[in-house]
């Protein structure tokens, strides 16, 4: 083994290490904008990804009909649903990372995305 002070191999290892570190910070330290985005799932599959600062109203087709989801001022909610209990609508506005509203009959859900969600799980 080479025991001279700095070998070219050492320089290579250091360069690789620096690139690796930069990549890791890039991967795991992107600003998540604390609930700047939400994801809409229909029947367990991603249907749309929403920017919460772009106001809009979506008509999401589910097995029972259209669920209407509104995005406004960094929040999102169900405003109408073809389901009997309307629990998804009563869930109200969501704004915190990890918050979720689900319409089981129509199999539509919306969840705020965050790399550091405020809630790990939510029980009802």
């Amino acid at each position: 083994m080479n025991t001279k002070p700095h070998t070219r191999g050492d320089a290579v290892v250091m360069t690789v290490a620096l690139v690796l570190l930069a990549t890791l910070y890039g991967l795991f330290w992107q600003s998540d904008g604390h609930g700047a985005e939400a994801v809409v799932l229909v029947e367990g599959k991603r249907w749309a990804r929403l920017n919460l600062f772009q106001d809009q109203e979506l008509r999401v087709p589910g097995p029972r009909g259209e669920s209407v989801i509104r995005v406004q001022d960094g929040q999102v909610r169900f405003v109408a649903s073809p389901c009997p209990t309307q629990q998804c609508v009563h869930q109200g506005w969501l704004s915190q990372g990890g918050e979720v509203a689900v319409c089981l009959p129509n199999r539509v859900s919306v969840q705020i995305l965050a790399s550091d969600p405020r809630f790990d799980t939510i029980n009802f």
Partner: protein
Amino acid sequence: MGSRRSIQTTGDDHLIAAFAALAITVHIAESALPSPFPGVKPGLANVVTLLVMCRYGWRMAAWVSLLRVLLGSVLIGTFLSPAFFMSAAGALASILVLGVIYGTSQYLGGWAVGPLGLGIAAAMAHMSGQFWVAYTLFVPHAGLLTVYPVLMTLAAALGVVSGLLTRGVLARLNSTSTAS
């Protein structure tokens, strides 16, 4: 009476035992140091592994490293605890990476990696190994990934320290062995 058979040991075995004992001593002394971050240690015991690898080859270094983790944990009392599995995974990862570097170094010529590079590679591999165990087995929460780059940065810095220490000790060992 010939009924008791003794185990045949080689000179290599004795060297492994002696270096493992040294590594375990450092390992235990180090475990008494308080750490600002869980999972972050100076890695001084790894200096012994690096030294053995630079002087006697990878196979002996692997023995010393694995014996240290196993017996060190028995002596500290963390055997089969989460800390032990993290430590073992770290040691395995670091030994594997060192093995790859050692195995390829004969083809690299002037590009062979010295103690400094070995220290950095070993420390970062160790951290990755123990972080992987912590993340998959103990705390599978995405929030944990946020600290991974920080831990890797600390690992790289401490790898530089252990690499430089290894280089210093090697230089002294080589100068005394040529002087005498």
